[in-house]
């Protein structure tokens, strides 16, 4: 007796508990095995790039906050780098150190969220997520001290930051940096030795390095494939050439490697913040209004500013026609570009791996759709 079988095509999302926002898959299954995936996005498109053409350079910062809303400090940083290149502004040293501290804190927060949600996708019912949220909470409280906002910070200004850190910020930062390695150890005790997590993540959705480079994958995802590419090291911006840090690499390129690289990067972030806190010196946090006016009016031309964001190379390309707002603003969003290999990664895996692999990319729909 022969049984007639046929592939089944399922629509997952945009309303689905683990699509990290509003993402939609059209997946074709052969039993439990994935034979085709069609990613569909655009459900969170808000036209940020077009809106940027209607706003002054200062106002666009608020739009960048809302692109990758779990690492808005880093979005601010990338945008401000492009603006400073465009206008030729020399930023104040104290402002740069402050934005480096804020950026690295934001990177920790973003990686924490990535790890927590990856475990949520694995089916551990919320426990790792609540633990990482506790650490993220203290980072957000420090952001509140810095700029009064927790998620949509808008902390950076052309040439520096909005205001100097209050006195109580430094002891809080110090105690947080003392505490965090223990918290990461605690998380690793719970997760990294867990047999089920090994079984679920190792060897799943492998991304070979040459394919990753071809698709211009960047960030922790590329370093998990064994490619030593970090803009903080290869093309240092701000004062990253003055700090020492390691770049954790893993050669497996699977879900576990992506998880492991993020865990290790958090420890490197702590090192960087410590060095920044030592090297920072008193001074103005941004140039005076005589040097950099509120309405910056860059000369006609274009500039591309890119940083190592928490998800990969985050770049802003700005074109100026000499007016008070950008003529064109384009974002190189790492979430979107890291998404391009999703189909290659997923084909041949099982349904249970679908959302785990998707979560291991660590993307943010706000940044994918913009």
């Amino acid at each position: 007796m022969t049984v007639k079988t046929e592939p089944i095509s399922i629509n997952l999302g945009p309303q689905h508990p683990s699509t990290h926002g509003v993402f939609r898959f059209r997946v074709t299954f052969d039993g439990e095995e994935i034979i085709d995936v069609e990613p569909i996005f655009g459900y969170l498109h808000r036209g940020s790039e077009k809106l940027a053409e209607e706003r002054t350079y200062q106002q666009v910062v608020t739009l960048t906050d809302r692109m990758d809303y779990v690492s808005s400090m880093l979005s601010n940083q990338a945008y401000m780098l492009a603006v400073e290149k465009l206008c030729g502004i020399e930023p104040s040293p104290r402002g740069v150190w402050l934005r480096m501290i804020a950026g690295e804190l934001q990177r920790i927060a973003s990686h924490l969220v990535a790890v927590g949600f990856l475990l949520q996708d694995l089916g551990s019912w919320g426990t790792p997520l609540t633990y990482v949220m506790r650490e993220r909470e203290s980072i957000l409280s420090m952001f509140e001290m810095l700029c009064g906002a927790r998620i949509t910070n808008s902390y950076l200004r052309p040439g520096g930051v909005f205001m100097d850190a209050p006195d109580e910020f430094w002891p809080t930062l110090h105690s947080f940096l003392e505490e965090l390695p223990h918290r990461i150890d605690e998380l690793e005790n719970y997760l990294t030795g867990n047999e089920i997590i090994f079984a679920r993540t190792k060897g799943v959705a492998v991304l070979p390095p040459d394919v990753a480079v071809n698709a211009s994958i960047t960030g922790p995802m590329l370093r998990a494939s064994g490619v030593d590419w970090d803009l903080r090291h290869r093309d240092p911006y701000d004062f990253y050439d003055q700090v020492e840090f390691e770049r954790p690499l893993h050669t497996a390129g699977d879900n576990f490697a992506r998880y492991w690289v993020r865990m290790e990067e958090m420890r490197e972030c702590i090192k960087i913040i410590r060095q920044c806190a030592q090297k920072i010196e008193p001074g103005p946090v941004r140039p005076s209004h005589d040097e950099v006016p509120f309405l910056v009016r860059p000369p006609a031309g274009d500039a591309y500013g890119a940083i190592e964001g928490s998800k990969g190379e985050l770049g802003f390309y700005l074109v100026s026609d000499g007016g008070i707002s950008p003529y064109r603003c384009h974002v190189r969003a790492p979430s979107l570009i890291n998404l391009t290999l999703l189909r290659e990664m997923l084909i041949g895996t099982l349904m249970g791996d679908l959302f785990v692999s998707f979560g291991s990319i660590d993307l943010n729909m706000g940044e994918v759709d913009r």
Partner: protein
Amino acid sequence: MNERFLDNSLFRNIYCYMAGDSQGCVSHGYDSGFLPSGWEWVAFAITAFVIANLFIQGALGGVLALIWGERRILARFQNRVGPNRWGPLGSLTSVADAVKTMFKEDIVPDQADRFLFNLAPIVMVIPVLMVFAVIPIGIGTVVADINIGLLFVIAITSASGLAIAMAAWASANRIAIFSGLRAVALLVSYEIPMALSLLGVLMITGTLSMTGTIEAQHVPFIIVQPLGFLVFFLAALAEMSRTPFDLTEAESELAAGHLNDYSSMKFGVLFLAEWAATIAGAAIITTVFLSGWRGWEPIPSHIWFVAKLVGVLFLIIWIRATWPRLRIDQVLAIAWKGLFELTLINLVVTAILTAAMSDREADGSLFSAGELWIMAAVNWAVFFPSIWLIGKLLAAKPYDESKGDALPEYPVATEEASLEGVAD
């Protein structure tokens, strides 16, 4: 008609209170009841109604308590407060949820098979409630002390897989069908180790009756039969679809699986049946492996039973709070490659031990406490090597742990590298 139920003390105590001067009650030493003779059928009807209600309401109340308990305990594990608004410590939250569920609109999808769609919640809930009929919750407190209790339990718990498949198929939802197929796969795989693990217990007790099983446990069978307990516990987790085997309702993959298209009280009944199944599973584990209502004297037997039951439920919740979910191929591999072998080892060892000590004791049981302790020692000696062996066999393939060794130069894009489908 009623005489054969009089051996059951739960029935007798209620029935003979009303119809005490019937012949059976007199022979059991009861004085006259308040109903005149000839009205025994009224007493019978009232007794049956009271007992059935007692157990069904008890099970449903237990479900509400379990949902509340799980929320509170999970919250503690997760560094949260948990429900704390309705009633003391939020204990009425489940009641509020039940009321809310009742007032929801009841939707049947157009494409659904209406008959099966409506039948599935009933098929789901009835077997679960029937399990409670054979579980002794105290000395003499059992609805039906049938002599095939264990067999009945194994047979009737497998109906949940049928109900899930039915709900999934009838709702004509593709995501739900995944859930239904997984439920059937789990059922087929885990029913075998589950039944085989009880066979070791059966050899020691020599009876299928639940009360007989408890009476034979001079030493709790969790100590005498560690392999049997482990296998039965894992298989029961799979049958109840609890973490780490909660594939049928895998929230991060299938949303709610077979529950996707259900709403209002049909959803409520399916949900309730699932939680009642958890309590039923825990009650079976308590009865068969934790010596049920047995305990030390001043504390009543019912309290012992409930305390052990709560302990098992806490363990289940603890596992849920801690472990991620396994993938379907791994779950099935554990059943066929791991648990099945473990039960076979357990069976062989138990068979040899029972044959070696097969003299009947003075009190009628097959084995005395001393003999059970000897069995326990041998079984624990077998337990660790066999777990280690199966763990070695099941372990994942060796994995390249070369962290930190970067590629010497970052690779240049080559023609061979697959560009198919990249950024079309």
